[in-house]
């Protein structure tokens, strides 16, 4: 009984934790490793630091580019545009990092697909010397926007005004920081008993196959629909 009282107390306490809105940016760092053939790519992938795999899957969201690129990870894009191997590009392009528990699983998935392609190929696919794959990693810098919210309902107001960097930080980067690989919104909302339904709805938003501005729109829709329907 004493224990459940303390749990209830903690819950009330958790409820009062404010949500601090952060922003972030990435600075690229060269690893010095580059591949010109598919075999070289495979060899480097076996040992490259997981941060580099993360960068080539997620970093593109914060890099200069136009919305809706043909492929959502750099490996698939290289296979298509430098190796001119459409089949391989499609197989690499469908890898969904959110389906896999960690970066090591992504590494294994990438290696399996590449090995299969190398086994099936009579020659080693190669790129021209100015189309090499450069392995990059990054440093993330996190800014304080000084915006703080205390109640879940306030999300309806703040999400539409969030910068792409804020969306990246709270919805993507968060999965590397939080217990259970949650985004920051759900990690915070689970502290409010009555918000579990909203958490469930947020869990359905796919963080990978969208741009940051699309993600912002989807999150806005989910949150505003929830509050409208629940009459809060």
């Amino acid at each position, binding site marked *: 009984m004493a224990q459940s009282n303390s749990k209830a107390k903690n819950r009330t306490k958790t409820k009062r934790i404010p949500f601090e809105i952060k922003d972030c940016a990435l*600075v*690229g760092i060269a690893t010095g490793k580059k591949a010109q053939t598919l075999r070289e790519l495979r060899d480097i992938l076996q040992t490259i630091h997981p941060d580099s795999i993360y960068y080539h899957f997620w970093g593109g969201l914060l890099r*200069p580019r136009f919305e809706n690129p043909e492929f959502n990870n750099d490996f698939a894009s290289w296979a298509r545009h430098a190796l001119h191997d459409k089949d391989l590009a499609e197989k690499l392009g469908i890898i969904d990092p959110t389906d896999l528990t960690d970066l090591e699983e992504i590494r294994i998935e990438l290696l399996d697909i590449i090995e299969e392609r190398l086994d099936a190929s009579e020659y080693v696919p190669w790129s021209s010397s100015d189309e090499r794959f450069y392995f*990059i990693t990054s*440093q993330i*810098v*996190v800014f304080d926007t000084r915006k703080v919210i205390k109640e879940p309902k306030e999300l309806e107001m703040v999400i539409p005004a969030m910068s792409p960097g804020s969306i990246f930080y709270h919805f993507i980067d968060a999965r590397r920081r939080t217990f259970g690989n949650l985004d920051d919104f759900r990690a915070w909302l689970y502290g409010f008993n009555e918000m579990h339904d909203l958490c469930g709805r947020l869990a359905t938003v796919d963080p990978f196959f969208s741009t940051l501005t699309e993600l912002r729109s989807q999150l806005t829709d989910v949150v505003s629909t929830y509050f409208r329907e629940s009459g809060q």
Partner: protein
Amino acid sequence: MTVKLERYAEIVGEDVIDQLRQLVTPLKGIRVVHVNSTRKGGGVAEILNKLVPLKKELGIDVTWEVIEGSEEFFKCTKGFHNALQGNKIDADSDLLKIFEETNMENAAKLRPVLNDADIVFIHDPQPAPLVKHFPDRKGKWVWRCHIDVSRPHRRVWKYLRNFIMNYDASIFSLAAFAQPLPHREYLIPPSIDPLSEKNIDLSQTEIQTVLSNFDIDTERPMMLQVSRFDRFKDPVGVIKSYRLTKKFIPTLQLVLAGGEATDDPEAKTVIDEVIKAADNDRDIHVLLLPADAHRVINALQRASDIVLQKSIREGFGLTVTEAMWKGKPVIGGDTGGIRIQVVNHHTGFLVKAPEGAALRARYLLLHRDRLLEMGKKAKTFVRENFLLTRHLREYLTMMVSLIHESEGRIELG
């Protein structure tokens, strides 16, 4: 907030300026020095002319020093520049001696400033050996490479690497330029300053005046390339593209505008080649402009229909960003930093040969709606990615990381 920072905030938003302020907080009290080889002319001097004052506005104690050298010294460094961009030219041993001696002399002059600085940025190969003359240096030294060194002439790179490996970090504009070095290599593309004379809005009257000063017909279409007279910028190839395009658009004019950087002894030879290739064509305007003709360049970029940057090698190509900022599509050489600015078929076209440039120029001049649409996209792309504030944010992040020896994540605020 200072007036200048307020003006930046109007363009990029208050939040971006606030981020810069947050980055500066952990850097309070440090002393920063930039060193390069020319105060005027070329992209490096232009970037420093903007970055240094803005760092000062944010409260950083920063100075900019320029090394001095003889004509022979610059002949040697121009050779390095060409070799680093792939030309197989070996450095003459007498010139190498001058190169090293000049750096030793400059080290003696700069000793009081550099020895106690917390962060020293050395730009490009000209002052690279300075580091060897400061064995008791207090701060972190960073080598900033502005050149396309993706495929350097190995012998020259090997020679320069002996100096560069002594730095604490280096910065390259693209991953493709980074070379194996025993320290952290940051990837920071350069930027333009939207408030500079070269990029601010101009009145139509001023633009017209500039054109009439150079006898350029304001009623006829115009293609422009702005760059140093350097073979890597392929000005003769641009003339070839113009001739191929003019067959279909007979009213077309071409303007090749460039200045002379004090550290480029080869410019005169290239200008002679360009004048010869122009062959007295009255519609080709070869303009030799002083290094401070920023408003003139601005007017020419705004007046042109298409901007070309048909480089064969390019560190970054700030003129591409400048043109895009003015809403112009760019036909650029498929090389180096041009690749990250010109998003093929979106903000312009990437080409390999003069024929490719002619094909795309003809297409754009005959499809005005497409030309305007690409120009609009180009401007947005620059606003989001290539303005000075982004560049400064990345420099400051790197500085915080170096001073505080941070690894993956830097939390501010």
